Structures are given as structure tokens and as C-alpha cells.
């Protein structure tokens, strides 16, 4: 059982320092996997000792020193198998180096770490786990809990991810200029996945998982600070802020999903909306508009409507038109169909959905049925809507979503019964 810091100042401090210390240790010892273990151990030691002894004068140097000592132990046990060395000299040398290293320039290796942890060679699940550990500073137990797997499984996943990095010979340095764009996209994608993992969790007993969204925001903010000129980074940050702002309204106290059109907008975080809008406004004029900025712009249009009926759907449709051209994602086309329906009527929207039936990626997906159901309801075809809501409910693996879809089917079904009775 990992020790939890009792002082609320310690945890965020540790999280902030973890990637910094990891950068220092990797630079010195050139072994990412072992360095990550060493830093993790130092972090756990801090979590246990600092609440008792108080914060050290230089927390970063403290962590670095402990991590260096662990690395030395690691090397010692490695080298004992290979050849003899003066161990005392080695230790002294490394400890002095640790203090020096911690005093060195504030060179932030966080970006390099992010590039490493989100390397396209890793599977998404591995990249997510490793990023949360090495850059986010979360403990293995915390990550395991967030993803509902046993701690040992998550430890193994992280271990294997580190091994992949070792095996692929990825260097601890920034990607070349040619690779930079693609590698940054990979980083943003991982952060986006982490955000969604936290955001789509229902509230209630799984409140801890909401922390994942905030962690994603925090890490994206760091990337934004380090790459202030990259407009897609800004776009992703804005998208997260503008989406997360609605979190309180998204579920009721029973954990049921409430769609955008019915949310209590007084529960939206206006400050966060303003923040997101500001980040977006700064990025858009720079010209390199990409998918994240467009999605953020769409979120901003929703967020600026005081009531659902005030939503500027024509603008949203225009944005989805642009987004559709930019990215061939079927989910975009589903949302485009909804926006079309809101502007040109449900029948037009349904026509667009018919075209999607041939897309194997989405034909069997519950979102297609759910979208169809929604538009059929708008069109007044209640029976068809009920059928599609039920079909969608059968296909989704997300419990809150399933309950929501069943509830819609039930609502319309009783409407039908009433109208039949009235005839």
C-alpha cells in the first residue's frame, strides 16, 4: 500500500518536480527505464518523509539526491556482476554531482519526456500510463485505480513501455525538426485521450477519475507554456478548458448523463470558459488553424449561448464543414449531420447519416444509432427513434450512456403510448 501525503501541498509539488528530476537523472545516467524507477522511489520516499520531517529547503535537490543514490545502488548491483569498482568513490562522486545537477539551469526536460512517453512506437494505453507516471508524477496505484486495473498490471504495463523505449533506442533529446510536427501530434493525441478518459466518467463514486481530466489540462498547459507559438497546442488546451467547464452540469446526482441541450448552464464554470476562449482567441489569428482549434471553436460557440435555444447553429455548421474537410473522422461527420439538422431540418441531417452506413468504421458503432435516434425524434418519427435508441443502448459498452439511451427510448415510448391512447 503506497503512502499518501497527508499535506495537500506535497502532492502537487511532487507532481511538478517529478519530470524535472527525471530529466536530470536521465541526462546524467542515460538510462530512462532505471531513472524512472529511481525517481519513482524518491517520490515515494518524499511522500512518506516530508509530512513527518517537513519540506526540505530544496525539495528538487532532495529528490535528485535520493534518485541518484538509487541509481548508484542499481549500477552497483549491475557492476558487481561485471567487474569491480571503487564503490565508495562512485557514490561520493554521484552524490556531489546530484547537488550540482539540481542547481543547474532550469532547463526543462518535460517536453523531451513527453515526446519520449508519447512516442508513436508505443500503444496508446502504454503511452498514457507512462506519461501519467513519468511526466504527471502519478503513482502506479493512482493510475491503476483510474483505469480500473490491478496495480501489478499497471506496473507491468509501465515497465514494458519503458522497455520498448529502451529497445527502440529512442534518444533523450528533442525530435528533429522534420519529425517535430508528427511527434507533437502524438503527444497531443495522448493528452486528448487522457482528458476524455477522465471527462466521460460519471460523477459519484469515481470522482478520482475526474482528476485525469485535470491532469490532462495541467500537462497540456505545460506544453503550451513550452511551445507558445504552436496553435494546435493552444487549440487543444482551449478545447479541454471549454469542455471541462461544463463538467458539473453533465451529470446529475444519480450519475445520469444530461445532454448539452438540457444542461443547467448556471453550473458551467464561466471563468474557465473565459480562459479557454482567451487561449483560442490568441491562437486563431495566427493562421495555422487545425482540428483542435476548430473543435475548440465549436465548443466556444456552444459555451457562449446563454440558453440552448440561443446556440448559433449556423456558425457551428460552418465550423463542422471546415473540420470535415480537414479530418476524415466519422465522428466528425456524425456531429456535422446533427448541426445540419439544426440548421436545415432533421430530414437533411438524416440523409447525411445514410451515407455513413457504408463506412465500416461507424456502421456498427452505437453513435450512429444514437445520432439517428436523435434526428428521428427531431423529425417527429418517434417509433424509429425508439428503435434506434434501443439499438444504440445494446451496442454501447459505457454504462451511463446505455442508461441514458434506454431512458430516451422509454420517454419516447411512453409518449407514443399516450398519443395512441388519445387517438
Amino acid at each position, binding site marked *: 500500500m503506497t503512502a499518501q501525503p497527508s499535506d495537500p501541498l506535497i502532492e502537487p509539488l511532487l507532481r511538478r518536480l517529478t519530470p524535472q528530476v527525471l530529466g536530470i537523472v536521465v541526462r546524467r545516467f542515460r538510462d530512462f527505464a532505471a531513472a524512472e524507477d529511481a525517481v519513482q522511489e524518491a517520490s515515494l520516499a518524499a511522500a512518506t518523509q516530508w509530512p513527518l520531517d517537513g519540506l526540505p529547503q530544496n525539495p528538487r535537490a532532495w529528490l535528485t539526491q535520493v534518485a541518484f543514490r538509487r541509481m548508484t545502488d542499481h549500477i552497483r548491483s549491475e557492476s558487481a556482476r561485471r567487474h569491480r569498482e571503487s564503490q565508495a568513490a562512485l557514490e561520493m562522486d554521484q552524490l556531489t554531482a546530484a547537488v550540482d545537477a539540481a542547481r543547474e539551469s532550469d532547463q526543462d526536460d518535460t517536453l523531451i519526456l513527453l515526446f519520449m512517453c508519447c512516442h508513436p512506437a508505443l500503444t496508446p494505453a502504454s503511452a498514457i500510463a507512462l506519461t501519467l507516471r513519468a511526466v504527471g508524477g502519478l503513482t502506479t496505484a493512482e493510475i491503476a485505480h483510474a483505469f480500473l486495473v*490491478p496495480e501489478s498490471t499497471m506496473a507491468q504495463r509501465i515497465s514494458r513501455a519503458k522497455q520498448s523505449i529502451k529497445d527502440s533506442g529512442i534518444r533523450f533529446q528533442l525530435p528533429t525538426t522534420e519529425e517535430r510536427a508528427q511527434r507533437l501530434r502524438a503527444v497531443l493525441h495522448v493528452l486528448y485521450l487522457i482528458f476524455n478518459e477522465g471527462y466521460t466518467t460519471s460523477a459519484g463514486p469515481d470522482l478520482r477519475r475526474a482528476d485525469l481530466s485535470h491532469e490532462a489540462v495541467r500537462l497540456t498547459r505545460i506544453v503550451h507554456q513550452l511551445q507558445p507559438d504552436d496553435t494546435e497546442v493552444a487549440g487543444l488546451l482551449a478545447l479541454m478548458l471549454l469542455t471541462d467547464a461544463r463538467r458539473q452540469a453533465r451529470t446529475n446526482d444519480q450519475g445520469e448523463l444530461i445532454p448539452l441541450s438540457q444542461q443547467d448552464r448556471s453550473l458551467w464554470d464561466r471563468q474557465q470558459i473565459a480562459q479557454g476562449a482567451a487561449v483560442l482567441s490568441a491562437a486563431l489569428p495566427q493562421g495555422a488553424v487545425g482540428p483542435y482549434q476548430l473543435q475548440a471553436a465549436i465548443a466556444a460557440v456552444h459555451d457562449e449561448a446563454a440558453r440552448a435555444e440561443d446556440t448559433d447553429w449556423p456558425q457551428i455548421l460552418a465550423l463542422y464543414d471546415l473540420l470535415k474537410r480537414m479530418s476524415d473522422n466519422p465522428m466528425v461527420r456524425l456531429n456535422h449531420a446533427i448541426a445540419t439538422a439544426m440548421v436545415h431540418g432533421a430530414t437533411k441531417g438524416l440523409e447525411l447519416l445514410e451515407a455513413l452506413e457504408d463506412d465500416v468504421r461507424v456502421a456498427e458503432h452505437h453513435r450512429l444509432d444514437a445520432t439517428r435516434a436523435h434526428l428521428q425524434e427531431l423529425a417527429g418519427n418517434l417509433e424509429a427513434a425508439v428503435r434506434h435508441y*434501443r439499438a444504440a*443502448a*445494446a*451496442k454501447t*459498452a459505457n*454504462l451511463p450512456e446505455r*442508461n441514458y439511451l*434506454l*431512458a430516451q*427510448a*422509454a*420517454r419516447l*415510448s*411512453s409518449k407514443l403510448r399516450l398519443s395512441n391512447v388519445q387517438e
Partner: protein
Amino acid sequence: MKYILLMSGTKAGVDTYVAWSKKDIDAHMTVLKCLNKELTESGEFVGTEGLARPDQAIVVRGQKAGMPITDGIFPEAKEFLLGYWIVDVKTRERAYEIASRISIAPGPGGVPTNMPIEVRQIVSLSAKS
């Protein structure tokens, strides 16, 4: 002792369930949530899972040239597992009692569903996971 409490159904049964009114679905879920809460407080709750419908199910049998051989056919009348609870209890009778609580959860119009719940003891081979 750990027991698994299995809830099964047929496609027809599930089709009926998804047609319940919202009020009836809510009432049913509330009773089950309450039960889970009680079992958590008593320390008897180990876990519960719901499974996706078998339209989503595949049966895999062996490999050919390294690839799984799959078959996605599920007969209409076949019973399939909807979900389960795992409880850690002192006696077999207590497991039956808990199963009975699941069975008595209300259905349409508040009438207990009276679903049969299969109770099996868990005899894990693995070292404590």
C-alpha cells in the same frame, strides 16, 4: 468464501427489459445500487460487472496459422450471461440470501422480477490476485 452470483437472460428477455418505462428501470437500478452499498458496508462486496450483449460476443476456438478462429453466431433462445456479482461471505446460505435480494428487485409495475440467480462457489487456482 467467495461466491459468484450469475444473472442470465435470453435475447427476448433483454428486449423486454429495454422496453421498461424509465420509472421501472430507475426503481430496479435503485434497489440493486442499494444492495451494492449494503454489501460494501458489510465487507461482503468483491465486485460486480455487466456484460455487453451477445450480438457483441464472439466464440473463439483455437488458432489457424496463428489467427483466432471465430464464430459470432448466437442462437435466439440461448441463455447468455448478463452480469454477475462476486461476494465474500461466511456461509453458502448467506450467498443464497444475497442472490434472493437480486431476484426480488422490482420489474415493470414494481412487481419483483423473480429472476433466477445461479450461485456458484469460486475455487480460484491462481495465487491470490
